[in-house]
């Protein structure tokens, strides 16, 4: 895109205004991706900021015939996955520690009432997403939350189509499993109490 190419050149030479104009539209999508990958607005903002800076610093490697938004989104996705992998160890440790201490992770979430409002269900779903491994989480969030096509997900993750499909498939089934386990726990709790 001609305007993008112009803005990229200006931004690459250190023009913050040009960069802001360049990511005007995509910053929301990038933030949404980070929010769903981390589950916390604060983390999402930190991560989105890092992703945007990474985009800024990679501007020189942008090839002008490519679509800027697609390219930027791919870098942001990589930033998210890197961050999740970086955190993975500590996160896993803390989760294991919780489970050893007798905490059933899903049941830490409040159990929804019978007439559960939709928002609670979505919060529960977000918590379940956070329990997916980084690879599956990225694939499911990109496809089902962000609404990319399988092909676009494959591009963003630099994977082949079949791998992406199987990751999405496994991720969804795992989510389903986590949610139904949580609902069973809730049912038990309410029948005991």
């Amino acid at each position, binding site marked *: *895109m001609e*305007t*993008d190419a*112009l*803005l990229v050149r200006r931004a690459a030479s*250190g023009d*913050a*205004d*040009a*960069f*802001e*104009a360049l*990511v*005007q539209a995509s*910053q*929301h999508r990038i*933030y*949404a991706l980070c929010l*769903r990958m981390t589950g916390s607005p604060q983390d999402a*903002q930190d991560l*989105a*900021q*890092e992703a*945007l*800076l990474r985009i*800024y610093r*990679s501007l020189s490697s942008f*090839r002008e*015939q*490519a679509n800027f938004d697609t*390219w930027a989104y*791919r870098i942001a996705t*990589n930033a998210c*996955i*890197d961050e999740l992998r*970086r955190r993975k*160890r500590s996160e896993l440790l803390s989760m294991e520690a919780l489970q050893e201490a007798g905490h059933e992770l899903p049941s830490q979430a409040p159990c929804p009432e019978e007439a559960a409002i*939709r928002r609670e*269900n*979505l919060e529960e*779903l*977000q918590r379940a997403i956070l329990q997916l491994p980084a690879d599956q989480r990225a694939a*499911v969030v990109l496809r*089902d*939350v*962000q609404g990319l*096509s*399988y*092909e676009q997900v*494959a591009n963003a993750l*630099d994977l*082949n*189509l*079949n791998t992406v*499909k*199987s990751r999405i*498939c496994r991720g*969804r*089934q795992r*989510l389903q499993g986590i949610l139904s386990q949580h609902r069973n726990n809730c049912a038990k709790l309410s029948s005991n109490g």
Partner: protein
Amino acid sequence: MDCKDCKELIGRYLADALDEMQTGELRAHIAHCEDCAREEAQLRQLIFDLGALGEDIRAPESLMQGVREAILHDKAPAKAKRSRRSWSSWRIAGAAAAAVAVVLLSGTLVLGALGSGLGAGASQAATAGSSDGYAADDAYVEKSMLAPAAAPEPTFMAAAEVPAEEGESASVTADSAMRDTGAGSGDAVTSSNSQAQSTGEEYGLKIIRTAEVYVHSDNFDEDRDAITALVQELGGYITSQHASGTALEPGENGYGRSLSLTVRIPSDSLDAFLSQSEGVGVVQESSIYEEDVTDQYFDTERRLEGYQTQYDRILALMDKAETVDELISIESELNRIYYQIESLTGSLQSWDARVNYSTVYYNLEEVRRASPVSLTLWERMQVSLQNTWDSIVLGSQNFVVWLYGALPALGLLLVLAGVAGLTVALCLRRHRRRAKAPKEEEPADGDKRKR
């Protein structure tokens, strides 16, 4: 099919990962199994709910402020520093990965030396591994197969040319350029309306249509050429293509090469493209999505007008400016507004381009025998029979190949077996001799025991 298999298949079905046979069997099972029908409904609900998680998220304003500060002061934010701190753990992980790779590689080599049949598997694994890395700086290359300069987006190009020429010159030229740009985008809107045929456009709606097509092909090269020709014929162009896999060997089943194309087709030709592409390969799945951007489009247009008025007003102030400081601050304000105008114009043009040209994600997968999704019982029996026959042929071919490759090992085995056989035979003969001998030596033995 039992319900346990079914659960697995439902997941793959909803991830577009089932072949036509499995899909047929699955649908047949679900039709009379309530549990599995519920399973499918629940998974569909999950996917729907996930979609709702993505709605209406806007980045906080502080996000761009933070980015701007970091850029201006050219300093990395806290997160970036943290990554440097964990560098040593990365190095350890890298060393571990290298060690694993060495073990795997040497294992593969040893296995490869043991049996020539394993070679193919090892090379496949190597390819899969190389595609797994995430390279952030590795730009997503969009290859234009058909001459990009002749990309048929005349309205959009004409409108974009002006600011590209203008560059960073004085504000007066910027002003005239901006007016030209405004006129250009106006033209784009008019021509998009005259060009559009779909009903939505007649009411001034801005609708982006996107299609996704999955096709099985048993004549990959011809089908690939056919689809490329069809795109050209309808005035479309290919923006990116991704090819993977290796060609199917004769007699090999499963999946061979796959080709993913991103195609832009004039929106009024999208239906023609989809119907004519049915003649290429066997369409497994074809879907169209419509996104209505009318609201955002006209909202952006209004904001653009607002900025343009503001720009003119501030420009007028410039004549009244008396000090250099005033001039500088006016100019920087003009710059800021100019970028906003440019960005909004860019959004409008991008929408126009996407409304005028639909995107099609076209996926061509090579299979041994492409068959339609809905098969009659007889067709399914035929396919099944053919598949079994193919496996028998493939199996015997593989056996012959293996036998040939294993000849040295078999020869060695033969020698070993011969040696073992000889040894056994010798032992047996000695035993038999001993069995005869004791009768003569018995008295001597008896004497020894007595002593």
